[in-house]
């Protein structure tokens, strides 16, 4: 973790006071991670591990019990137009048309822009997510996928420094999800957007992200390890499964979700350093060069062998 990282989360914890003499409930504890500019990071973990809380803390909508988040050199102390959020349930205002929903955001970002400028700006982003022709429909007249596209357009339209997506495609059917994933990937690539995204879908994470953070089960969830996506940047949904390390990564992730995430939370593996969760590159023997902040990182495969036998 370098001090120059775009976003740094340090020692985040979330506790809820236990009622009537019961001990406090610690959802997650000692969570450290960093995100570089232009990086696409996914976070995977079972329900209840506090993923959404972490996202909300990053967004400034929620505050952690301990720890802090610094983005672009400034501490996150509340919601800001610098971080766009795509909510799980699209969160469109149902009384406004698609365009008015985007407009609401754009006007918040640039209150002084002329009506015409705002209109053009909104239209550009609606076009970008493929909603040309449906601008004046109310959310209730749009399909689930289209609604989520409006949500994405709204988040992108304010041109935030960072985008936070809370499981945006969870409620969509596979086909629609695929299409939007492609589009999201395209847009992010084009705009070099820094993205933090929660997902339950392993394939989605492999397709979109540069880095996948694996969270152990709650309570007292932590970031168990960080998987570096070694697949080429120019991957696509159609050819993804043909990539050499695809199955190695996929199996690693599935294995973590199925068994290791639980074991991890029951007993911390020896040598685990929460400030520096192990970086792993399934399928790759050698240690990755570029995202290598410190020398003391153990061999990923070895770490796996040692810690998660």
């Amino acid at each position, binding site marked *: 973790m370098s001090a120059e990282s775009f976003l740094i989360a340090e020692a985040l914890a979330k506790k809820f006071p236990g009622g009537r003499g019961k001990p406090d409930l610690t959802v997650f504890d000692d969570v450290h991670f960093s995100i570089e500019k232009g990086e696409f990071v996914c976070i995977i973990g079972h329900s209840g591990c506090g993923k959404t809380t972490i996202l909300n803390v990053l967004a*400034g909508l929620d505050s952690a019990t301990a720890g802090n988040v610094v983005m672009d050199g400034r501490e996150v102390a509340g919601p800001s*137009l610098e971080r*766009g959020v795509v909510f799980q349930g699209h*969160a469109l*205002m*149902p*009384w406004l048309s698609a365009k008015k929903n985007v407009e609401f955001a754009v006007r*918040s970002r640039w209150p002084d822009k002329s009506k015409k400028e705002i209109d053009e700006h909104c239209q550009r982003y609606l076009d970008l997510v493929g909603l040309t022709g449906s601008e004046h429909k109310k959310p209730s007249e749009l399909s689930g996928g289209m609604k989520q596209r409006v949500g994405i357009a709204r988040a992108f339209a304010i041109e935030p420094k960072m985008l936070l997506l809370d499981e945006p495609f969870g409620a969509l059917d596979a086909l629609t999800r695929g299409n939007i994933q492609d589009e999201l990937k395209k847009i992010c690539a084009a705009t070099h957007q820094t993205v933090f995204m929660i997902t339950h879908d392993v394939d989605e994470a492999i397709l979109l992200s540069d880095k996948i953070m694996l969270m152990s089960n709650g309570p007292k969830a932590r970031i168990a390890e960080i998987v570096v996506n070694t697949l080429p940047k120019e991957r696509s949904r159609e050819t993804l499964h043909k990539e050499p390390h695809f199955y190695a990564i996929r199996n690693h992730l599935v294995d973590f979700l199925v068994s290791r995430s639980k074991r991890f939370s029951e007993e911390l593996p020896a040598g685990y350093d929460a400030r520096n969760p192990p970086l792993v590159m399934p399928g790759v023997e050698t240690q990755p060069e570029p995202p290598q902040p410190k020398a003391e990182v153990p061999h990923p495969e070895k770490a796996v062998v040692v810690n998660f036998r």
Partner: protein
Amino acid sequence: MGLKAGALSLVIFLFFLGIWHATTVTPARSGGALTEYEQLMGKSAGKQDGLPTPAQMGSAVKKHLSDPFYDNGPNDKGIGIQLAYSLMRVGAGFLLAALVAIPVGFFIGMSPLLYRALNPFIQVLKPISPLAWMPLALYTIKDSATSSIFVIFICSIWPMLINTAYGVASVRRDWLNVARTLEVGVFRKAFQVVLPAAAPTIMTGMRISMGIAWLVIVAAEMLVGGTGIGYFVWNEWNNLSLTNVIFAILMIGVVGMVLDLMFGVLQKFVTYVE
């Protein structure tokens, strides 16, 4: 389908009229001179016993509606004028109530603390029959016209207050979060997020309030008298004229329905589908 339903409605109505006629019509008195006692008892002039027949009712309706705005002094005015007085009172009381209830409801809905602090008062005041306020209002306000407006105010404030508070409190967290992440100001949030989000609930409250206000004004005017549809009912009760009382009931129903329909349209206007 619509035509069939209409035809069926008509048949039901005619059937109802038939039954009505059959049960109320009294056979013409057989000939023979009336004794003085019978004359004094009103047997000669077509004195109406009990409920009117549909024909009598029809001619009463025609008579009232053909000249709805006559003015024979302070105690005898046309049905149109009386309804206008009642509507004016309801309108004034209702508007005042809305002006108080909606902003206050807004604050209560936004602040759980205020909600808990004010809740006991609301719970105690809400179930009080509006007319129970009348003697107190007359005593303190010292004006009967203002008192009846006050009674409308006090009865229509609660549904609006409670619905506004409820609507505001239950605005979806997501929308508020959207507003927060967009750093939307307090007023913009109130008017562009919370208000439209809570509008259907608020409008429901207003619709309920208007229904209550219209029910109450009749009773209030019967109590206070002077003008209005309630006074008309009272005046005709005073004369034991069932025909006119039934006519007034009909008018109260029709106006109440129109008011409700108006609020129905407004409600449709602010309702959204999620």
